[in-house]
C-alpha cells in the first residue's frame, strides 16, 4: 500500500483510492452505492474507461424523454438507472470516471447540500486543470470554454455524500444518436446539438496526466492511500439492496412502442 500526499504531518482525513480500468459501469455504480451506504471511510474511485457502451440515467429519468429506444434495442445497448440524480450519459471505454465519497465532517467547509458540494468540486478540478485549459464549473457541468467535457451527479445521505463525474475523454459520434435532446438543459447550452455542446478531453492533456493531477489535487485536502479492489472488505455488511438497476428489455421495448 502506498501513502501519497503531504497529509500525515498535516493531519488530513484519510481517503482510500481505488484505481480501476474497464470495470463495467453497473458494477462500478453498485460498488459506489454500497460504499456510500455501508462504509464510514472516504473514497476516491477512478475507473479508466468502462468495458462496453452503456446508457446511464439519473434516478428520476424518464426513458421515453431521454433515450431513442429503437437504435438502443437494435444495438443492444444496456440502460442503467443510477442511484444519483442528474442527466443521461452514454459511457464506454473512452469515459473516465472519478468518484468521491466523503463523510460530511471530512470536508468541514462544505455543507452537505448540492450547490456547496458542486462548488467545492469545481475548486478541486480548477487545481487539476490549472495552466492547461480554460476550465470552469458552468452551472453544474465541467467545461473548457463553453463546451462540456464532464457531467456530474450526487447523492447525499445524513452524514455522507457522493459526487461522481463522467469525463468525456473521447467519444464516438454514432453513440450520440442514442440520446434525445433533453427537455431540461443548462442555460449555457442554448440550442446547441450534442456535437456543438461537448468536447473531448484528449485534446487538452494525456489520460494518465489527468488521473495523476486529480490524485495530486486530492492530496492537498486528504491523506490519499491507494488500495486494491480485492482488499475492500464487505464481509461484515448484511444483505444490501441496490437502488441502481439495469432496465429490462421489456421496459425499453415498451418505450420503443410509445415512441413509434
Amino acid at each position: 500500500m502506498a501513502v501519497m500526499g503531504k497529509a500525515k504531518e498535516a493531519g488530513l482525513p484519510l481517503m482510500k483510492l481505488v484505481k480501476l480500468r474497464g470495470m463495467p459501469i453497473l458494477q462500478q455504480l453498485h460498488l459506489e452505492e454500497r460504499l456510500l451506504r455501508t462504509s464510514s471511510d472516504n473514497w476516491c474511485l477512478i475507473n479508466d474507461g468502462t468495458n462496453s457502451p452503456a446508457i446511464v440515467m439519473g434516478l428520476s429519468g424518464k426513458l421515453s424523454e431521454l433515450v431513442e429506444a429503437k437504435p438502443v434495442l437494435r444495438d443492444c445497448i444496456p440502460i442503467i438507472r443510477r442511484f444519483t440524480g442528474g442527466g443521461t450519459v452514454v459511457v464506454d471505454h473512452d469515459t473516465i470516471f472519478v468518484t468521491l465519497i466523503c463523510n460530511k465532517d471530512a470536508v468541514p467547509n462544505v455543507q452537505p447540500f448540492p450547490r456547496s458540494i458542486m462548488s467545492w468540486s469545481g475548486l478541486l478540478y480548477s487545481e487539476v486543470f490549472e495552466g492547461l485549459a480554460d476550465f470552469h464549473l458552468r452551472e453544474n457541468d465541467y467545461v473548457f470554454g463553453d463546451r462540456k467535457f464532464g457531467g456530474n451527479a450526487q447523492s447525499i445521505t445524513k452524514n455522507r455524500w457522493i459526487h461522481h463525474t463522467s469525463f468525456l475523454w473521447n467519444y464516438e459520434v454514432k453513440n450520440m444518436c442514442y440520446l434525445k435532446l433533453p427537455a431540461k438543459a443548462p442555460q449555457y447550452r442554448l440550442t446547441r446539438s450534442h456535437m456543438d455542446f461537448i468536447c473531448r478531453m484528449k485534446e487538452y492533456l494525456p489520460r494518465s496526466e489527468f488521473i495523476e493531477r486529480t490524485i495530486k489535487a486530492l492530496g492537498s485536502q486528504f491523506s490519499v492511500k491507494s488500495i486494491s479492489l480485492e482488499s475492500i472488505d464487505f464481509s461484515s455488511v448484511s444483505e444490501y439492496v441496490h437502488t441502481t438497476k439495469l432496465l429490462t428489455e421489456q421496459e425499453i421495448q415498451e418505450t420503443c412502442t410509445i415512441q413509434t
Partner: protein
Amino acid sequence: MALRMWASSTANALKLSSASRPHLHPPFSFSRCLSTVLDGLKYAESHEWVKHEGSVATIGITDHAQDHLGEVVYVELPESGRAVSKNSGFGAVESVKATSDINSPISGEIVEVNKKLTETPGLVNSSPYEDGWMIKVKPSDPSELESLLGPKEYTKFCEEEDASH
C-alpha cells in the same frame, strides 16, 4: 435572498408577530437565517420538521432545506403501512443533480403519503410546511419528540451551520 433580507428587517422593524397577523396560519416567525421556521413544530438537525396533532405526526422538510437543495424535481416516498425509524431514511428528493435522503425524526407507522408530490414535486419548494408535507406517521414512541429541536433551537442551529461554512 435579497428580498428575504428586506422582508426580515422590515418585519423586525414593524415588530410583526403571529399574534398581530391572525390571517397567517400556522404562526411563523422570521429568522435571522432568512429561512422560515414555524412555531408549533419540532425539528431535526437533518432538516425535517414534525407536526404532532393527536395520534398523527406529519413530516416534511424545512424551508432551510428546500432553499439549500434548489428546485426539487422528484420526490420518492414509501407506501402507506411501512414502518419508519427515528433518524433513518424513508425516501429521497432529487434536485438539480443530487438525490438527498429524507430522514424520519420519529419512529412509527406511515398512515398517509402525500401523493400530490408525484405530479407536483415543486410543492416542497413553494410550500414546505403545508402543501409540501411528505408523510403522516402514527408515532410508536411519542417521547421521541422531546429530543427534537424547538423553533428557536433549530433557527440557531441553521444560523451556526451556515456561518461555519
